[in-house]
């Protein structure tokens, strides 16, 4: 089954956040292991964006252009040598969980058996395009990072795991051929196709799929970093994380910390969908005010922060917040993989939430009782609440929703039920007035056209999970 994501990969748009620099400023000194000074202001000036994406959209991603812009691939000469820089830089995973990268590297490196590295480009979140965009525009940065990560953990095999996309596959194959001709890579890279499932990028689902099985999460013992692909210690890193790694390897920790906040340094890629339907992938400094990214005028009903496992926010709240976990987590949201969506006032927030909840329920792996029992019932209740205007619904439905949300959290093998409950729970809060209106048989929306992106087609049988 192919996902109906017909958007071609988007290149970077300048957006409100950054301006074009006069020329790439890659002369920052390579101070490996240096630490930021304590008196650093919270939010850094952005005159060094973009980092990962090319300054001119549509630049052909040739190896020559890549080396010309960034310089050569800085192998350290042995395992572990890069880890101190990564720790000093404070790089965290860009796949959504924001786990400290140096801890993962150390954990895999300290295993006895020879390890494997997987670049995770399986961007299962329908509203997220940043990984595809990064691979389309800057494949060599990701591939550099993959080599540096492989060297750091002593791996002898590298895999790039991504959903099927004809053009992207060709581009990556061409990039790998260029690197092979230049004898740049020390570890061979295999491209592996992921099934178009929401959960395909989850670490244990990824390992299970690459090992020849279904892309379904496992109950995590042993963990993937101990025994993953082919029974070997496996380092799984999001492709954006590896791209940042490739730059930290060249320019060092202090350079990396030149953007972002002290607690959450660096830049990140965000998939942005505005209320008027314009969308794109932007590279932002962490800590960027949300009001600078999304147009939050009168036409915006709500803001979705963190994708379909994230949380809805009221526009007034979102306008006050920066894009950091420190600010978002206390109110039940999180940065995640950088999906930011402004829902237009003309749409029905409840109906949109119900559509997504239905998708999330159908993407359940069907393994854990609370998940495959709870999520479909939650989705069904939401669909009932969203209903058709003029149709009254039972107040029991909202009580059921809240009970099921409590029953489902934390009782699955992965975080799919938890994330879904976070998403649905935030909708029940932010769209409270809309729910009341629906319970009385009214809907305030003026458009029933679907807004939030979802793939067509649902998983039907076993082959959809391979």
């Amino acid at each position, binding site marked *: 089954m192919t996902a109906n994501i017909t958007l071609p990969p988007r290149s970077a748009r300048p957006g409100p956040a950054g301006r074009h620099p006069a020329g790439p400023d890659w002369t920052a000194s390579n101070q490996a292991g240096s630490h930021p000074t304590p008196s650093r202001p919270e939010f850094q000036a952005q005159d060094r964006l973009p980092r990962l994406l090319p300054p001119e959209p549509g630049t052909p991603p040739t190896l020559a252009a890549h080396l010309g812009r960034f310089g050569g691939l800085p192998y350290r000469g042995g395992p572990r040598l890069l880890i101190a820089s990564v720790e000093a830089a404070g790089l965290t995973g860009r796949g959504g969980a924001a786990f400290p990268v140096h801890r993962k590297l150390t954990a895999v490196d300290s295993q006895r058996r020879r390890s494997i590295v997987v670049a995770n480009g399986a961007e299962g979140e329908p509203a997220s395009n940043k990984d595809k965009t990064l691979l389309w525009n800057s494949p060599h940065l990701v591939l550099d990072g993959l080599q540096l990560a492989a060297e750091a953990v002593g791996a002898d095999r590298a895999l790039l795991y991504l959903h099927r996309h004809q053009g992207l596959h060709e581009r990556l194959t061409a990039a790998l051929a260029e690197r092979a001709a230049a004898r740049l890579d020390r570890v061979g890279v295999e491209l592996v196709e992921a099934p178009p499932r929401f959960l395909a990028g989850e670490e244990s689902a990824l390992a299970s799929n690459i090992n020849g099985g279904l892309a379904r999460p496992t109950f995590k013992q042993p963990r993937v970093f101990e025994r993953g692909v082919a029974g070997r210690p496996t380092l799984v890193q999001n492709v954006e994380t590896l791209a940042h790694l490739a730059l930290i390897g060249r320019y060092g920790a202090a350079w990396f910390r030149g953007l972002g906040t002290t607690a959450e340094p660096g830049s990140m890629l965000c998939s942005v969908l505005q209320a008027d339907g314009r969308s794109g992938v932007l590279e932002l400094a962490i800590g960027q005010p949300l009001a600078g990214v999304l147009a939050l005028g009168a036409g915006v009903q709500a803001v979705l922060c963190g994708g379909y496992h994230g949380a809805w926010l009221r526009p007034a709240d979102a306008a006050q917040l920066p894009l950091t976990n420190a600010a978002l987590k206390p109110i039940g949201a999180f940065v995640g993989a950088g999906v930011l969506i402004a829902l237009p006032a003309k749409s029905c927030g409840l109906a949109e939430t119900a559509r997504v909840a239905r998708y999330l329920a159908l993407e359940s792996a069907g393994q854990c009782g609370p998940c495959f029992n709870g999520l479909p*019932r939650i989705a069904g209740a939401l669909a009932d609440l969203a209903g058709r205007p003029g149709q009254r619904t039972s107040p029991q439905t909202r009580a059921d929703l809240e009970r099921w949300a409590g029953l489902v959290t934390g009782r699955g093998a992965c975080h799919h039920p938890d994330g879904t409950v976070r998403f649905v729970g935030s909708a029940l809060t932010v769209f409270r007035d809309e729910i009341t209106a629906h319970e009385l048989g009214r809907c305030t929306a003026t458009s029933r056209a679907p807004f939030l992106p979802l793939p067509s087609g649902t998983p039907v049988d076993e082959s959809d999970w391979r």
Partner: protein
Amino acid sequence: MNGITSTTALWYASRATGVVSLLLLSAVMILGLVVNRQGRLPGLPRFGAVSLHRSVSLLAVLFVAIHVITAIADPYVTIRITAAVIPFTSGYQPFWLGLGAVSLDLIIVLIVTSLARARIGRRTWRSLHWLAYAAWPVAFAHSIGSSTDLQSGGLRTLAIGCALAVIAAVGWRIWRSAAARPRFERAASTLDDSQQSLTKAGRS
């Protein structure tokens, strides 16, 4: 009809415990199938079926052990100890006793792996437990072939009854698992069910 003398006592004991073993093994199969499909025995709590399956299988092992030992010890026919576990090496009725040895080997594997279940892990244990589907038919064939006891009269009726009961239980198991939804469809069918029930339930 010979009376039971001291020389034939062991022989009669072996035959009698053989019949009881067949009954118990048939019960173990049926109980195992009930547990597998999460069925409940009437009047018992859920752990009743699991507990019975475990107890009856240990009891069956006991009777099988007595059956084998008395057959070996009996002076009337020569059955070496090794013939009990190495199939088809007995001097007396090598084929039918050989089947008994095969089923004994399988039963030993089943019991040992089940006692060590936690240590060998769920997957290994489950794969090996499928050997039960081989152990019972082989034991049954051994029962009806190695002596004429089950080939006539009341004991024949008993043997046929055991076979029918086990076959019926296996049929029930296959029917129930065919009727159950495969994993991939669980969420989708629950979604359909819940939407239908909401549509019926409740427009006030």
